[in-house]
């Protein structure tokens, strides 16, 4: 029965595809996502939305349409959210066969690589809207993939620059057990070396609190965090907990009164709810109106991806996917994404250069790069992996 249903859906999906052969004036964009099986975060205040990413793409589509009206260009967004990796690869092949060349993806690293290496992907422009994995910008980089969100290296550098400016140079690093947490912690370690921040202790978080929301559960958490941080002299606790499993438990409970930063507390991020500078209020308002919820960094990544395709189509004056793909990497390409600066792709690894916000749940604290961190080409390149140190080898 579910198999039949899926088959029927696939047939309907095929029938609904407009062959972009008539695409002289239409820019066809396909959005490929993996239906998220997200676990609930620690706090039930912020339930993970089911349409995260997609809503950002839809908003950018509307923006592109408005601009396209004046240039006799229209945009079409084909949404394919699949339950598993196989489904994603099949959808990609199906769409590529139907003529799609512009892809926006919300996929984990391994699946993204599988997809990018398919023969059907050779002519494609794949815009990775949501990953932060450094390996996709390093040894696993691909010439047909561009990355919109800041990498973990950029996020960590944004935070370490701020700590350096504040002279909070001794950190306690606390990393969760998940591979993503380890990757985040690795980025912090690398960045700490780069900006001469001392990791006074590097501790894994292994405590499983069990039923923490039961009555009096908070005593156990408080006691554990106090014990965990006892006898360590540090300025800031930096936590690596990407899935929100324990990071919020670390604030206010340590032995010494020290702020928490990293994946919780003061967080380096591409987008944050309190952000309203450089016209950001407008994007927040339009998104709220459309989606009925706040924009997340993943929504923002997808918004930037679809807008980048729109910008390339507008500036190149073309709907030809090859021209759009080339323009994305052209030095003249620039994306305005409510960060003041113009954003461009780094030619050495396909990463979008961008300022990184430092915010907590209710206020924007700072924006990196911090003043004073100089660079011969662009101050934005003080964040993340610079050209001389890249291990990406594009053919």
């Amino acid at each position, binding site marked *: 029965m579910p198999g039949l249903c899926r088959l029927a859906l696939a047939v309907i999906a095929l029938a609904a595809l407009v062959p972009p052969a008539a695409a002289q004036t239409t820019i066809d964009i396909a959005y490929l996502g993996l239906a998220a099986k997200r676990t609930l975060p620690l706090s039930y205040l912020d339930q993970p939305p089911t349409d995260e990413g997609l809503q950002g793409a839809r908003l950018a589509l509307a*923006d592109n349409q*408005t*601009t396209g*009206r*004046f*240039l006799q260009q229209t945009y079409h967004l084909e949404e394919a959210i699949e339950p598993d990796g196989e489904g994603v690869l099949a959808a990609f092949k199906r769409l590529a066969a139907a003529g799609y060349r512009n892809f926006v993806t919300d996929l984990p690293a391994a699946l993204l690589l599988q997809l990018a290496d398919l023969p059907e992907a050779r002519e494609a422009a794949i815009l990775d809207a949501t990953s932060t994995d450094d390996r996709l910008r390093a040894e696993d980089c691909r010439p047909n993939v561009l990355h919109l969100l800041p990498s973990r290296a950029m996020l960590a550098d944004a935070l370490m620059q701020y700590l350096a400016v504040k002279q909070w140079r001794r950190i306690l690093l606390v990393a969760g057990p998940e591979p993503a947490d380890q990757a985040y912690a690795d980025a912090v370690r690398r960045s700490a070396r780069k900006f001469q921040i001392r990791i006074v202790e590097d501790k894994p978080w292994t405590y499983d609190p069990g039923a923490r929301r039961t009555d009096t559960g908070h005593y156990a958490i408080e006691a554990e965090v106090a014990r965990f941080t006892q006898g360590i002299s540090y300025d800031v606790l930096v936590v690596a907990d990407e899935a929100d499993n324990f990071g919020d438990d670390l604030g206010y409970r340590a032995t010494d009164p020290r702020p928490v930063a990293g994946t919780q507390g003061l967080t380096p991020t591409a987008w944050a709810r309190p952000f309203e500078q450089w*016209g950001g209020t*407008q994007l927040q*308002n*339009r998104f709220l*109106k459309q989606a009925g919820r706040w924009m997340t960094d993943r929504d923002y990544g997808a918004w930037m991806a679809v*807008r980048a395709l729109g910008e390339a189509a*507008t*500036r190149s004056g073309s709907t030809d996917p090859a021209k759009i793909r080339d323009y994305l990497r052209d030095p003249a390409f*620039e*994306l*305005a994404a409510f960060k*003041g*600066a*113009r954003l461009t792709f780094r030619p050495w690894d396909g990463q979008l250069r961008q*300022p990184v916000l430092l915010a907590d749940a209710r206020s924007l604290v700072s924006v990196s790069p911090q003043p004073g961190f100089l660079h011969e080409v*662009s*101050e*934005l390149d003080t964040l993340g992996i610079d050209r001389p140190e890249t291990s990406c080898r594009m053919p």
Partner: protein
Amino acid sequence: MPHALIRAAAAAACLLLVSGARAEHLLVSNEKDNTVTVIDGESLAVVKTVPVGARPRGIVLSKDAKSLYICTSDADHIEVLDLATLTVTRTLPSGPDPELFTLSPDGATLYVSNEDDNMVSVLDIAAGRIVSEIAVGVEPEGMGISPDGKILVNTSETTSMAHFIDTATHQVVANVLVDSRPRVAKWTKDAAQIWVSAEVGGTVSVIDAASHQIVTKIRFQIPGVPAESIQPVGIALTDDRKRAFVALGPANRVAVIDAQSFAVEKYLLVGQRVWNLAFSADGKRLYTTNGVSNDMSVIDVGALEVVKSVPVGRLPWGIVVAP
């Protein structure tokens, strides 16, 4: 003794003359404070701080110079500030989220950019109602009307275009693609050109009014200032089109440009995040609003020097000189 007397009399006469020339007021909208600061044009002292509606941004003087129209963006309407009594006497509809507007030369119509819904609203001031809406690009912002009132130029920030609108038919007659995030559109007095600043692109496009072609793009480079912080917004052009001034946002400078050769002559250091500009009536001074340092800088146009800064409200945005 007679000499001294004459000198004193001459000085008094000069003072009178000066105060005659500067018997004007400066009006500054403060986006975060929900106020308009009124400053005496001669003494540069703050005369009064007037509470207005939520998030005042664009301001423009009525043709008879008796009122100030204020875009109170978050109140979703336009307020009319009576300059004799310094009280808000009337509100006008604006469409959602009005940011900037411009007045037709006959003083009868306001053209309002509605940032949230990609429209320009046409407001009949006497009737107090919106008579037409014109669809433009994403996040309409800058508004410039030709001296004869026939062509309205609107910029849209995310679409990155200057839209040329025929004010008789309300049709968009041309779209000029400029650099990213265009903010201000300013006509030259001779109606030959429109200057459009692009905040993120970091340039000013000079557009030929007749052909709609970009004549040149002015770029800025300041030693020691990262290119990313050079964000052009406000533009002021002298009536003879000899010189232009461009506010460069977080670069905290105003560029002085030879408007004939388009060469940048000088950068003047002003307050932080310099936003909009206005000349005094005699053209001898240029005033700037500085959004982050919450003040106004005063530039001596002849000497090309910053001579004073005047504290105003929080996040000063627009500035208008009233007689």
